[in-house]
């Protein structure tokens, strides 16, 4: 807690945490948007979300080792994860699309454990990072330093998000996805191949996570067990923002980034994860209390 005093003495640090938090929040928002997509279209809460991020990070890491620059590595990671997404859909996910939510949670939990343990066996439990080879920029007359990679990550996250929105809004397949989200049965009656839509949605989510994973590997580090924190962060962002609310997702993502940076600074990094999950429980309880006041959960 002694860092709280530091923060009060030097308010410029607060600004530093704020900027840094907003920048990393964009990556959280990206992963969360993918989760909201799958949740909204397929009615599945994907617990393996964070594992897709982790795997994407490993693809970029190994490509970087082989001499491929991350600028090309990230699209390749996204493509690889797209293929994995199709494969997972065709083997497991299509069987749980129409089942109850608990089955979906438990099945994706199984996939998450499977991927995490596979990564542990194949890539070892060592912490890996992709060197960004970028300097830090000085802001506010040298009082603030922001690693340039965070700016790049922020821009990349926004770019991927923009491409995704354009895809959903203007392409035929994107419209089919949105139609299925609104009413799957009606979409089927109108001749939309919902099975194909589900496969694409799930794979697109995997691709988003893969790209985000590359950014995570460059901004921080990756290791086989980091998945669950990203899953629960996304879950938190989605329930705060609501399904299909893009600006909400970005705001909640930035908010979570800032809160997390501040908590990590004040409480110490060993309590940072605990803080995230505690925040999750508090948000769920608070949300429930708000809904209970209007008895809206009855619907």
């Amino acid at each position: 807690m002694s860092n709280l005093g530091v923060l009060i003495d030097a308010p410029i640090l607060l600004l530093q945490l704020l900027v840094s938090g907003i920048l990393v929040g964009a990556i959280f928002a990206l992963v969360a948007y993918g989760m909201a997509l799958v949740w909204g279209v397929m009615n599945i809460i994907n617990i393996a979300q964070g594992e897709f991020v982790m795997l994407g990070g490993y693809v970029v890491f190994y490509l970087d080792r082989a001499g491929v620059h991350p600028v090309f590595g990230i699209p390749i990671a996204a493509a690889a994860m797209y293929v994995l997404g199709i494969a997972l859909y065709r083997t497991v996910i299509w069987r749980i699309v129409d089942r109850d939510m608990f089955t979906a949670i438990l099945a994706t939990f199984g996939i998450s454990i499977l991927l995490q343990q596979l990564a542990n066996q194949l890539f070892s439990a060592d912490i890996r990072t992709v060197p960004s080879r970028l300097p830090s920029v000085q802001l506010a007359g040298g009082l603030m330093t922001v690693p340039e990679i965070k700016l790049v990550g922020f821009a990349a996250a926004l770019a991927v998000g923009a491409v995704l929105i354009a895809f959903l809004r203007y392409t035929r397949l994107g419209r089919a996805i949105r139609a299925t989200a609104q009413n799957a049965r009606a979409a089927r009656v109108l001749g939309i191949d919902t099975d194909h839509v589900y496969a694409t949605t799930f794979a697109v989510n995997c691709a988003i996570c893969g790209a985000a994973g590359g950014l995570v590997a460059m901004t921080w580090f990756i290791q086989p067990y980091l998945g669950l924190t990203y899953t629960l962060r996304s879950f938190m962002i989605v329930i705060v923002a609501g399904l299909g609310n893009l600006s909400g997702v970005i705001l909640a993502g930035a908010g979570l980034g800032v809160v997390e940076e501040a908590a990590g600074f004040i409480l110490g990094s060993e309590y940072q994860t605990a803080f995230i999950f505690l925040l999750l429980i508090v948000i769920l309880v608070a949300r429930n209390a708000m809904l209970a006041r209007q008895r809206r959960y009855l619907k």
Partner: protein
Amino acid sequence: MRGHARNAVVMIAIGAAALAAPWIAPAITTQLAFLWLMILFAVTWDINGGQMGYNSFGNVFFFGIGVYVCALVQRDSGLPYYEALFAGIVLGALAAGAAALVLGPAILGIRGHYFAIATLGLSIVAADVASAWEYIGAASGMAPPVYPGAIESRTKFFYYLLFALAALTFVVVRWLYSTRFGLAINAIRDDEDKAEAMGLHTTRYKVFAWCVAALFLGAAGGPVGNLVGFIDPRDLAFAGATFGVWMVLMAVLGGKGTLWGPVIGAVVFHVTQELFWTYLLGWQRVAMGVLIVVIVVFFPSGILGWTLRSRRHAVKSLPQARTQSAS
């Protein structure tokens, strides 16, 4: 009445086999002790998950409290070994029950999948805090005091302790399901709002059910910590990715919402898991992930649900044939 007699015979046979097991197969006494722990896990999980419809991923939280409270009592109370152990077990159970009582009203108000994820968060918070808190050894864990007797009698002692706890849990839960409480939590599972409209104080029942599960999980913590001999915050006490998920899985595998389902599921699961450890060393956790997906996707109603359904089919087709021949 015959069903009753058969049940009694089955239970006496299981009890006799359990009492004799450490003498027949002394090499695997530890694994057998863990079998009783798994049965306790599955049966207590099913109180909320199966019978009440509240699928928790965080029940391991209560187990972890039991592990740590017992180890702390043993370390700091200054009592002789057995007194400290039993005081620790009782206090561990009470502490876990108290935690359920305090957290219950808020967390059990959350419904459906939100509840599942909130409880998942609960177990992870506990694991993180336990591995950062110096007083309880932080990430380097704690070691309970050494058992004063011989090595072989140590395993046997904890085996019988865990067997007694599992048997007690089963008997108490079986009795609870036959009372008004059993009907109430089933009503909550089937339609919580209707149950509430019928005048049932649902929150009270939900919290009580969670407390029962927490009491037994907390009591089991002490013996397990001592049996293993080293308490790791993430791998033993608050092991969300193993124990926490296994509880759910064993109940689902055997048949959610039945009395014997979780027991059967726990036995089948534990044997499978031990086989994985023996034959797939290194890859056993990968195989576990595959197993989870297969169970959930292909056996959602569990072993018991599946056999009951196929038996019902057989019974249904029988009278039909008779009536046809009669007419």
